[in-house]
């Protein structure tokens, strides 16, 4: 089932993916370095829905988002989009999801418009009118005036808004936002909340982790530390089995 590519004419939001398309994970387990970050995690995400990830530092919020983005392969469990395993078709998953991480991926020597234009050409290659898409993204986060400013002169907040502008310039059904509100002032957080609401209204999906307050009506919350696993106890279980086998 290929998600219809959003055409440039839709001014505000992407064309809603078919109502049935659902993103789900069963028994997901993530291992970073040698630590089991979380295990046995199930979730479903249908169009219009949102996941809010809470939990202390190191409980795996970022790892979970990177896993959803396909950057990390789950050690166990399956991740599927409409039943089809995501891992089988990375490019398709890349086309339908956008990931905003801690780092802002803004090149210091390129101007804001050039930065976003590159991402539009890389993520939405079929976009007919790239400059228009770029302007739409900048307009949504009120940074049109920064269009020709090179990246190195931007403040952290401005860089974050340039980062978020990519979501609008290169639209896709699934948004994965890792603490998007960092470095944003009150007004910008408001704009972000509206953008997310519009995205969800148009049938998009959002998974978002945050420490600060963000209005996400009707979102399902996930406390990541519920899925934590103490890796040492895992070894104890193994030792127990080993000693039992010996006797």
């Amino acid at each position, binding site marked *: 089932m290929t998600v219809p590519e959003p055409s440039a004419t839709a001014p505000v939001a992407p064309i809603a993916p078919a109502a049935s398309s659902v993103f789900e994970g069963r*028994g997901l*387990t993530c291992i970073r370095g040698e630590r089991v970050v979380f*295990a*046995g*995690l*199930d*979730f*479903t995400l249908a169009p219009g829905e949102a996941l809010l990830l809470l939990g202390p530092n190191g409980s795996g919020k970022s790892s979970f988002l990177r896993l959803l983005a396909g950057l990390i392969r789950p050690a166990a469990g399956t991740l599927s989009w409409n039943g089809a395993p995501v891992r089988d078709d990375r490019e398709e998953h890349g086309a339908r999801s956008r990931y905003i991480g801690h780092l802002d991926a803004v090149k210091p020597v390129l101007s804001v418009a050039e930065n976003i234009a590159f991402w539009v050409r890389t993520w939405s290659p079929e976009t007919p009118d790239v400059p228009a898409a770029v302007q739409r993204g900048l307009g949504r986060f009120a940074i049109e005036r920064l269009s020709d400013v090179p990246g190195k002169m931007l403040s952290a907040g401005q860089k974050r808004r340039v980062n978020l502008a990519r979501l609008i310039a290169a639209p896709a059904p699934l948004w994965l936002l890792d603490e998007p509100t960092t470095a944003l002032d009150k007004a910008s957080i408001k704009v972000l909340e509206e953008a997310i609401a519009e995205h969800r209204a148009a049938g998009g999906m959002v998974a978002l982790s945050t420490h600060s307050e963000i209005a996400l009506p009707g979102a*399902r919350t*996930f406390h990541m530390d*519920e*899925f*934590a*696993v103490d890796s*040492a*106890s*895992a070894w*104890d*279980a*193994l*030792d*127990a*089995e080993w000693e039992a086998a010996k006797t």
Partner: protein
Amino acid sequence: MASYFDMGGYAGYVWPSYAVTAIVLVALFVATWRGLKNRERTLETLLATRGPRRRRAARQEAPAPEAVNTASTTEETSR
């Protein structure tokens, strides 16, 4: 007997090559062996200091190694 060790005049090459082989291989074996013993000793001390209480708890809680942490999460996700 001495002529045997002379190796037809090439003693200076045959014996050193066997010596080098012996040194390198024995050194590797000893280093590996000692490394393993050190690690096993530290493992023992770590397991001991973690306290038997916790090891017994681990044994009841997860009889099979693949038993997943089954904290009930289903009602959380399917709301």
